[in-house]
Every structure is written in structure tokens, then in C-alpha cells.
């Protein structure tokens, strides 16, 4: 394996000359991934799942988050629980199903049984243990160190001393509000997870998920497709701005010509669609007034929450999270978020919008995968060709949606986490 020089910083910034460069070594060096695991994934709030995925007591899902196996369950009292999915006895994974409903969890190795809250209920051969063994609580399934929620988005953190989720999200909360306010009765996760992978560094997907600059060239065939659909698009040009939300979070907010199920009509949706979209829009006006209704309905948002959560409220709403397994490989999970009360018509068109653009079988994402994998290939030349450039829009008072401010926000925070010792 190639060995790399020790980096002291992954970025090179010169505000006067409007230069912002990122070291390509940051995408290939195993020592960088190791530092990211210790200083980013072990210390940041990480998305676990949505409350709607656990509709009733006993509902559970198992999920990998930050390299751990997590059992996410709703206990008998209806409280959400995030537990480390490992038996306190000898370590085996307790729950081996992806999702389901349970009355209790049993480790098959020696038969220990745990409640939905992780408390040890019984173990074979109890008489051979100390009398107060169960009551000690030291043989319960362990809860994650920190577990907090915002608007049904549930997060975990493996650093017990981390700031509150609310403080961590900061101004990003307001954007989650705008997205969740689409629904009157709350948002839900539509059945079906898109799980895929890329032979590329995980940070490439951070950049790509909030990159307004690549759409016209990378996604030329998607726009060809939209133009070919009967009736076509709304007469709305792509236009908007980018904002740094602090803590490495960032957002793009912009108008675009595609249909939004809440709530921008396009001619391709016909008269039935128009009635439904008008009704949804009117409902937003009644609940929030003209100005906020317009923002909710007609503006798109690509919201990035450091380090690896993307909530894109575009032609559909996706929640996307991704983890590195190696410097040049990541696993991605994506869900469709939708208003609970949505009509059959709107749900159908939402899902069509979703899979036309967002999915790994759609008309756009496969080309993103290709682009990111080609970047990773390009980085094989990183010993000589050392730097990426993300300076577009530097110095503008309000950077456009297709500038690179949001990437600079990510990389600045990334650099701080990886290279600065904590006070």
C-alpha cells in the first residue's frame, strides 16, 4: 500500500485571492479515515431513524450507525430506545432481524431474554448466579451514550459529553421545521429502503448531495427526460442561494422547474393534479400565511447536517445517510419521507418523482455514482495532482445555489474536527 505524508491540514485557504483547495490525500489516506472515525463519527450526532418507522410498542429496526450495530425499538411504554445490539453476557448480536415487532429480545447463544427497554428479564440457570444479579442492572443491554430527537428525526452520539442535539443542529432546525411543516399530521417513512454503495470516499457524497453546479452536465439526460414528459415542466428557472449553517451544516434553497408534491404543479400532472396541488397550497396558506406557504411549497432545499445526513426536499423528500467502510468505499441508505395524510394520487407521483431522479435505478443517481467513482479513480494521481478546487462563489455577499459555499462550510468544519485538538 502506498504510504502518505503526515497531513497537518486538509485544506488550503486564501481569502484574499479567493482560493479554497482540498487535499486529495483526504480521500485516499487510511490514516485520515482512522482520524475521521475517532474525531468525527465517534463525536458527532448521527442520524439513527425516524419515529414513524416504529409505529407501536414492540416495533424495532436494526441498523448500523457510526460503525456500531444499533437496536432501535419502541418499548412497552411507547418510549423510543436506542440500544447497542450486543448481548451483555458474551457479545453476540441479540436481534438479528432487520425490522419487525417483538414482545422481548432473546439472544440465541445462551438464551438470555431482554425487555423492549433492554432490561434483563431472565437467563437460563438463574440459580447459579448471584441473587441480585438481575437487579444490579449491569447485565442489561446497554443504551447508546446519547439519544435525542428533533421533529421525529432521531439521533445518537457515542460521546457522552457532546452538546445537546438542539444546539448541535442550530439554525438547521429551522430548515427541518420548514420541511416537516409540509404535513399537517406529521411526516412518515414510505415502505422500502434504497440501499446501495459506491466505490468512492464518503465525503464525495457529502459534496455531491449539496452540489448545484453539476446538475446541468452530469444530469443532462434527466432534464432531457423531463422535457419529453407530456406537458413538461413549470416555467420556473433554477435560482436560489446557499447558506452556511455553522457546525459544518449547510443548505441550498432555490426554485426549480420540476413538480413538487407539496406543492408545485407542473403541466405533466394534468387537471386532477392541479386540483390537488391547489388544495395543498391553500392549506399551507391557511396554516402559515402566504409567505411561509410559498417557501414551503415552491422552494427546494438541499439540507446537509454534518457529518453525513442529507435531507433533500426537492421533487420528493429523501433522507440519506452514508458511512465509509474504507477510504474508497461507502454504504448508503436512503428513505422517502412524506406527509402521513397524503392522498393516493400525491403519494404515487411523489414516488415516481423520487425514483426518476433520486434512486440508484433512476435517470440521475447512476450518473452521480459514476462521477464520484471517477473522482476516486482520479485521486490515484494525488501524489502529483494534489488539490481539489472549491472556490466558486468566494467573496460573494450571497453565494448562489450553484456556488460552492456549502462545500467550504463542510470542509472547514471537517478540518477543524480532524486536525484541531479539542480544548
Amino acid at each position: 500500500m502506498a504510504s502518505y505524508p503526515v497531513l497537518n491540514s486538509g485544506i488550503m485557504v486564501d481569502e484574499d485571492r479567493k482560493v479554497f483547495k482540498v487535499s486529495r490525500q483526504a480521500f485516499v489516506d487510511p490514516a485520515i479515515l482512522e482520524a475521521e472515525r475517532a474525531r468525527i463519527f465517534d463525536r458527532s450526532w448521527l442520524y439513527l431513524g425516524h419515529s414513524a418507522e416504529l409505529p407501536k410498542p414492540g416495533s424495532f429496526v436494526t441498523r448500523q450507525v457510526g460503525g456500531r450495530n444499533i437496536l432501535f425499538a419502541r418499548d412497552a411504554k411507547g418510549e423510543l430506545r436506542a440500544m447497542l445490539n450486543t448481548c451483555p453476557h458474551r457479545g453476540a448480536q441479540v436481534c438479528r432481524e432487520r425490522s419487525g415487532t417483538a414482545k422481548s429480545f432473546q439472544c440465541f447463544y445462551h438464551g438470555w431474554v431482554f425487555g423492549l427497554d433492554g432490561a434483563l428479564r431472565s437467563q437460563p440457570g438463574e440459580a447459579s448466579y448471584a441473587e441480585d444479579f438481575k437487579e444490579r442492572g449491569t447485565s442489561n443491554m446497554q443504551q447508546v451514550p446519547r439519544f435525542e430527537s428533533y421533529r421525529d428525526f432521531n439521533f445518537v452520539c457515542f460521546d457522552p459529553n457532546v452538546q445537546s442535539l438542539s444546539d448541535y443542529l442550530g439554525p438547521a432546525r429551522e430548515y427541518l421545521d420548514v420541511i416537516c411543516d409540509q404535513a399537517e399530521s406529521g411526516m412518515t417513512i414510505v415502505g422500502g429502503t434504497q440501499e446501495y454503495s459506491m466505490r468512492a470516499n464518503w465525503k464525495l457524497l457529502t459534496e455531491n448531495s449539496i452540489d448545484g453546479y453539476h446538475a446541468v452536465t452530469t444530469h443532462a439526460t434527466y432534464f432531457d427526460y423531463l422535457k419529453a414528459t407530456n406537458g413538461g415542466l413549470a416555467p420556473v428557472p433554477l435560482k436560489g442561494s446557499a447558506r452556511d449553517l455553522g457546525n459544518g451544516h449547510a443548505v441550498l434553497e432555490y426554485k426549480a422547474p420540476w413538480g413538487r408534491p407539496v406543492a408545485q404543479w407542473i403541466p405533466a400532472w394534468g387537471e386532477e393534479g392541479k386540483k390537488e396541488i391547489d388544495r395543498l397550497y391553500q392549506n399551507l396558506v391557511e396554516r402559515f400565511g402566504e409567505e411561509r406557504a410559498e417557501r414551503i411549497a415552491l422552494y427546494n432545499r438541499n439540507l446537509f447536517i454534518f457529518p453525513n445526513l442529507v435531507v433533500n426536499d426537492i421533487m420528493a423528500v429523501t433522507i440519506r445517510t452514508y458511512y465509509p467502510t474504507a477510504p474508497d468505499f461507502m454504504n448508503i441508505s436512503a428513505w422517502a419521507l412524506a406527509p402521513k395524510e397524503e392522498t393516493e394520487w400525491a403519494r404515487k407521483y411523489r414516488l415516481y418523482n423520487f425514483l426518476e431522479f433520486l434512486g440508484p435505478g433512476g435517470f440521475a443517481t447512476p450518473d452521480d455514482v459514476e462521477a464520484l467513482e471517477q473522482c476516486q479513480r482520479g485521486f490515484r494521481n494525488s501524489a502529483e495532482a494534489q488539490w481539489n478546487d472549491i472556490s466558486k462563489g468566494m467573496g460573494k455577499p450571497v453565494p448562489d445555489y450553484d456556488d460552492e459555499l456549502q462545500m467550504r462550510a463542510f470542509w472547514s468544519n471537517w478540518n477543524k474536527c480532524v486536525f484541531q485538538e479539542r480544548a
Partner: protein
Amino acid sequence: MRMFTMQDIPRADVEEFLFAEADLLDEWRLPEWLELFTDDATYSVPATDVPANASPDNSLFYVADDRFRLSERVKRLMKRTAHAEFPHSRTRHVVSNVRIRSRAEAELEVSSAFITFRTKDGVTDTYFGSNRYRLVQVDGNLRIRDKRCLLDSEGLRMQGRVSIIL
């Protein structure tokens, strides 16, 4: 050659049709491949954590094409700007375990097992699962009214994408 009805068409003829379909895909003759589908045809690849008979109207799929979107998919894949497939990958669709599941008056339900290899840029990916077809006869020729690809893998890890037609 004797004409068969959907009531008595032998499995060998159905197999021949599916093998020919696979060849068209592997030879990148996608516009001809599209002609194997009826005007009201659908083609879908569900997510791997939904039931086999899930509907794309209320569950998330990887692919859920009506005939229009399917023809646009073919058009797209033949362009240089379909970056994921430019230059075209090489593929081999292996079709086996062909069974006629049921015969209605005008329609057959057929299932097959598939293993599809895709190779590009020195990387080879494998897709595997079963295909469920609803086949009809149009002007004496077998045609596909519905093709549903049920992936056996857990998601699309390692493949990362379904940029080809399965």
C-alpha cells in the same frame, strides 16, 4: 411452423423468447429489446425490503417504469450523456429455471432465475434474483406485458446502481 395458443405453448418456446431477450440486452440492441414489450407494459425493480407483490404507487422501488418511462430509459441509455453507461458496460444475462407458473386464456405467468454480470473499468458486479413475467401474444408473437425483477441481494451493495436493464 405450428402456431400455439397461450394454453398450449411449450416451455421451450417461452425459454427461447427469454434467451433472445437476454441476447438483445447483452448486445445493447435496446430499441429492439423495447419492441418486445406491449404498449401498456410495465417494468419494475422493487426495493429489497418490500414484499414481492408490493406496488410502486405506495412503496419505494429502484425502478418502476410504465411504457413511456421505459422508452425514455432506452433512449437515455443509448446517449453518450448517460455517463454511468458510457462507454457501454459489457454484460451477460444468464437465464435459467424457467417455469410457467400459470396459464390464463390470453396470458402466461412465467418466472425465471437470473444472474447478470456487468463489467466496466476493471470492476465486475453481479446481480442475481428472479424475474416474474406476464407474457401475452400480439400478432402471433410473444410480448411482455410486465417484467418484475426481484433482487435476491440485500439492497444494491456492492453493485451500487442499476444502470443497466436487468
